[in-house]
């Protein structure tokens, strides 16, 4: 194993996974860190790359530049919000050395599940941040990467520099035939010197960890979920090598749960966007079902998705087929969401497994103690 891989392996095994990241509790994937005297817990998912490829492909195919803009906006909003929620250092409250150190560690984090290799440069005077990746998730396949690559990184850089007008663009992309992906985040004028085609999003918000978030997302004992992600890695269901975490050769990456809510919000603004999002998620569910083979979906869904951080899941296959998910990650956006991606994936799995067209079109939320999401046909 090359030295670089050894370092990344060490990083994911010793820092990302067991220490900072709680991955040994069924139903939960949680990032922990301290902010002053408080210990903060952020709910995360491990998400399939294939799902995001499908979403981006279908949105771009259906809406062209308008779709690209929506994806970029979702990514940038997510990056900015994630940076604020994670209490990333910014130019307002940190010196340059702190920011350089932070950037170094953040890039190593990206090498955890996002890329095989990453290198970066920062220029505070020009407000410029560039980064090159080998095998970066999503765009390595479809040549887009609007959510995670362009938008996500631009959102984080905007937060660090405390300047919402900074944008990001991918000047080189493995998925488009280049030898690597290369992203630059900078003021519009600097980007315009390099390319005419890029997107803008300045409607960014910040979010702070609060008592409601903590209460709703507290780690609890599960009743139905038996597996944690650590169990699945230890048992060899998931395989990690050189920055790639995969299940049956399909790659997964680590991400804060807000991403699904923000993505849904942005895509819903497109006419018919919700249906496209549902269909892409449905398609992914069918692909996943084909990947895991002839297994019993009623057992597979809780065994698998609970380990990815979705909560404690029970599939009730009675006359009224429903999937009950206790401890589904709650965010401030939960009351506005329709859980389109989750419903779509589950519909795809169950439809493919049963050979029937089953769509979980309805949902019900109970937030009396924590979020219990029930989806029904």
């Amino acid at each position, binding site marked *: 194993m090359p030295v670089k891989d050894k370092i990344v*392996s060490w990083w994911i*095994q010793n820092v990302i996974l067991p220490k900072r990241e709680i991955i040994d509790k069924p139903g939960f994937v949680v990032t922990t860190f301290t902010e002053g005297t408080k210990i903060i817990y952020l709910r995360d998912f491990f998400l399939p790359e294939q799902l995001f490829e499908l979403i981006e492909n279908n949105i771009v195919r259906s809406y062209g530049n308008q779709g690209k803009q929506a994806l970029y906006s979702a990514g940038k909003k997510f990056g900015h919000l994630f940076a604020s929620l994670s209490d990333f250092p910014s130019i307002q409250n940190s010196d340059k050395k702190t920011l350089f150190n932070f950037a170094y560690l953040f890039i190593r984090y990206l090498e955890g599940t996002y890329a095989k290799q990453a290198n970066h440069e920062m220029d505070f005077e020009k407000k410029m941040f560039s980064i090159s990746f080998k095998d970066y998730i999503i765009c390595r396949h479809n040549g887009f990467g609007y959510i995670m690559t362009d938008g996500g990184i631009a959102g984080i850089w905007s937060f660090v520099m405390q300047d919402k007008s900074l944008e990001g663009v991918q000047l080189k992309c493995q998925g488009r035939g280049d030898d690597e992906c290369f992203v630059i985040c900078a003021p519009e004028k600097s980007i315009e010197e390099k390319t005419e085609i890029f997107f803008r999003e300045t409607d960014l918000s910040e979010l702070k960890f609060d008592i409601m978030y903590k209460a709703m997302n507290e780690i609890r*004992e599960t009743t139905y979920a*038996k*597996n944690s992600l650590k*169990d*699945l*890695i*230890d*048992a*060899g*269901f998931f*395989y*990690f*090598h050189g920055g790639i975490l995969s299940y049956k050769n399909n790659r997964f990456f680590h991400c804060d749960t807000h991403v699904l809510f923000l993505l849904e919000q942005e895509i819903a603004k497109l006419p018919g966007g919700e249906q496209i999002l549902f269909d892409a998620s449905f398609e992914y569910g069918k692909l996943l079902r084909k990947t*895991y*083979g*002839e*297994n*019993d*979906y009623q*057992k*597979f869904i809780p*065994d*698998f998705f609970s380990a990815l951080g979705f909560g404690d899941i029970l599939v009730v296959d009675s006359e009224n087929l429903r999937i009950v998910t206790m401890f589904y990650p709650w965010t401030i956006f939960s009351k506005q969401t329709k859980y389109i991606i989750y419903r779509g994936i589950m519909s795809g799995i169950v439809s493919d497994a049963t050979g029937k067209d089953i769509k979980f079109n309805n949902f019900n939320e109970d937030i009396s103690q924590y979020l219990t999401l029930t989806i029904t046909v």
Partner: protein
Amino acid sequence: MMEEGVELGTNISRVKTGVQGLDNLIEGGFPKGSNIVVTGVAGTGKSIFGMGFIAEGCRNNEKCLYITIEQSPDEIVEQAMQFNWDFNQWENEGKLKIVALDYRRLSEMETYNELTRLVEENHYDRLVIDSITSIVNSPISPYTIADGADRGLHLPALAEMNRANVMTLFELTKKHGITTVSISQKVEGKPGDTLDNISEFIGDGLILLGLVEVGDELKRTIKVKKLRKTKINGLTHTFEFVSSGIVMKSKEV
């Protein structure tokens, strides 16, 4: 990862575990004379682990003792035969003795006196106790209650005697330098590595066996959590049952 207060065990005599691939991870085997606790929930392969340990000894002409509490000797022989371990033949050759202890008499001192005599007279190299959990959870026999009453001991104190008996057994094996595999049960969802909450602390080693299922796909795991006088990597590995016993699968993380 290194157990506390030990030198690296180059001069320590090692005993092969009988699990293909495990010896390489623990400097060649269990330290001779150590007591290794093997734990896991039902169905994880704890008894098979113990049988494989005995089979390895018998193949090497060592003298072995298998103490069974939950299964009859016939059941043990039958189960071992699934892996072509001929316990009957080894018993006939004097390499192996299978002793079934009466669950109802585990609290009685006489049981341990008999065991002590057996061990002292036979110079065993290897021992399997299947299981420690049965000893700790065994009922207090009427004889023990009567005997205790004579000595002014009441039920709560007598219940603690089961734990003391485990200590007695461990001390006995230590005194005679017998390398021992003690099987202990774990209940899913309950905290602690063992149900008895004692063996994990007093054993020289602790091996966790696990089962992980996704849909109808099942994988078995093994982790050496503690092993005195031995450098261990602390990682969880996978294993499978094959016709010759337990084989560890290679791990690349």
